[in-house]
């Protein structure tokens, strides 16, 4: 009986590890493929078309950095990185300037109608680029911002502001009211109390909002595709898939670019994901 129970336990553990391994392989395989492609000689990448015995899973020739060198020297990759950083930084600043006061007001000052309005603002996050890129193309044309990074700087806050307002509202709510009320009893106005007491406590919330604004900007492909046409003004998300594909056999450089762009952001993402989920599920999960 005891041995049987132990056996059942062992089988359960084994099944658990097999399942965990299977999920990991499923999630990671494309990144493995990206990596091995980025470091392979061209010959090693393409010989499989004619040589049947060639094994694509491993390095048949020593790894090479030639795709990275090509990417940095002969493509506009660095310009795309710079454009992404410039647009991302501008959007983060605009978002924080607008979403911090709004999130605080919804959390503390507006009561019941504020709650409704907060939900309303969050719902605008659900209006997708797909519905808006056509009217935006008209708006951007009227503003004369076609093929300009300004178009992206103006448009991206339309999804970062709703999301961050909602995120920060939840964050400010979790800070005890007593703290700023104490400062107000001590004679500070509400605004100074917020500046001196609440904001320093909210640093991690502000960082989270800044990080997600930046990643949402990096994630966008649709607006960049709609507004930006010259290669030098593209962001990474647009430039890598669209402008790197001049030559059909350019997979090495393409995967090299995808790798060095996506892996850093994916790693940092893990530090913030729980707050992101807490923001999205606020209301559905009682924490």
């Amino acid at each position, binding site marked *: 009986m005891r041995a049987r129970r132990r056996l059942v336990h062992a089988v359960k553990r084994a099944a658990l590890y097999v399942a965990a391994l299977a999920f990991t392989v499923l999630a990671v395989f494309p990144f493995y493929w990206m990596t091995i492609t980025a470091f392979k000689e061209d010959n090693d990448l393409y010989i499989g078309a004619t040589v049947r015995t060639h094994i694509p899973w491993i390095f048949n020739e020593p790894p090479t950095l030639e795709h990275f060198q090509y990417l940095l020297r002969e493509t506009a990759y660095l310009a795309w990185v710079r454009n992404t950083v410039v647009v991302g930084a501008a959007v983060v600043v605009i978002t924080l300037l607008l979403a911090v006061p709004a999130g605080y*007001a919804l959390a503390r000052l507006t009561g019941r109608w504020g709650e409704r309005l907060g939900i309303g603002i969050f719902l605008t996050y659900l209006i997708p680029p797909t519905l808006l890129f056509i009217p935006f193309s*008209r708006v951007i044309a009227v503003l004369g911002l076609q093929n300009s990074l300004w178009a992206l700087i103006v448009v991206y806050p339309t999804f970062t502001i709703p999301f961050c307002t909602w995120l920060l509202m939840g964050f400010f709510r979790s800070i005890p009211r007593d703290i700023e009320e104490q400062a107000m009893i001590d004679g500070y106005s509400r605004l100074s109390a917020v500046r001196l007491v609440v904001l320093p406590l909210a640093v991690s919330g502000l960082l989270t909002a800044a990080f997600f604004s930046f990643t949402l900007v990096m994630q966008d492909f649709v607006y960049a595709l709609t507004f930006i046409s010259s290669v030098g003004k593209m962001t990474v998300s647009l430039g890598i898939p669209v402008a790197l594909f001049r030559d059909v056999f350019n997979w090495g450089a393409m995967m090299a670019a995808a790798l060095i762009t996506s892996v850093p952001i994916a790693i940092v993402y893990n530090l913030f994901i729980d707050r992101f989920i807490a923001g999205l599920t606020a209301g559905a999960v009682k924490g």
Partner: protein
Amino acid sequence: MALPDGAQVVVPPRAPALRRATLADREDVLGRLLLAPAFLYVILLVGIPFVLAIMLSFSGARSGTLSFDWVGARHFRTIISDAQFLLTLRNTLIFTVASQVLVMILATTAANVLEVAFFGKRAVRMLLLLPWAVPVSLATMASAWIFDSTFSVINWTLRALGLFQGWIYWLGDPEVAMLAIIIIHVWRMFPFATVILLAGMTAIPLEIREASVIDGASFWRRLFHVNLPLLLPVVTVAVLFGVVFTSTDLSVVYLLTRGGPYNSTHVLSSLAFQRGILGGDLGQGAAIALFLLPVLVVVAIIMLRLARRTEVGG
């Protein structure tokens, strides 16, 4: 947020008499002032374009000019009798439903695995999130290379393992191409749904689950009578976001197949882009994209009901 132990907020007291009350001390006024900039931004750049989207769909607007002439429901009549549009509508539906069903199956399994403590769990969770964290256009390019018609590693492996001797032209055959698109959506969305479900599961009070175990409820009974009903709100959130992100996605289809082969894999967003932006017929593009609106309205209504429920209950 809890303050760290021992943390104290020290602000020097200040004499109350020195400061005169200003308008900013009236809470309702201050609240409105702080809200106004964000609110205006959203009204100006989401509200107005949204209305414009509807107006454009009734106009003969083209890109390149700023003209705006009313054509009534002409675009809607055109596209409804357009076989390409109907196929596109069907594709959008298939992609969304098929990928969400698969996502929820995978995510429920993964969340149940990740809930148990085991060695290496943190690493697994971190790796599992990669597909969701990576910019979608880059992930799609990696998939395009994996599904390449000459060099597909999947084909090579199937053949090497002796499972399938033929050669699958992943992106060259309409049905297989649709399968490829669904695979990418599932791969990308299931980590996101897993994390949402995990958050929901950890929020179920442990006593409830322990009680059901002690009372001798079987695994399935616990699943259907205890865990799932308690998880329903969070499952709903995961499905709603999944539906919105999948049904409106343009990047995957545009980069993987461009709607091909023979325009057989278009979805509403990629067809709207092709006709509205590339073809320059803004009016028709807007009309096509507008067919996503019913989905979004339904999602918004369910979200509102969820929010109200917790407002009352919590």
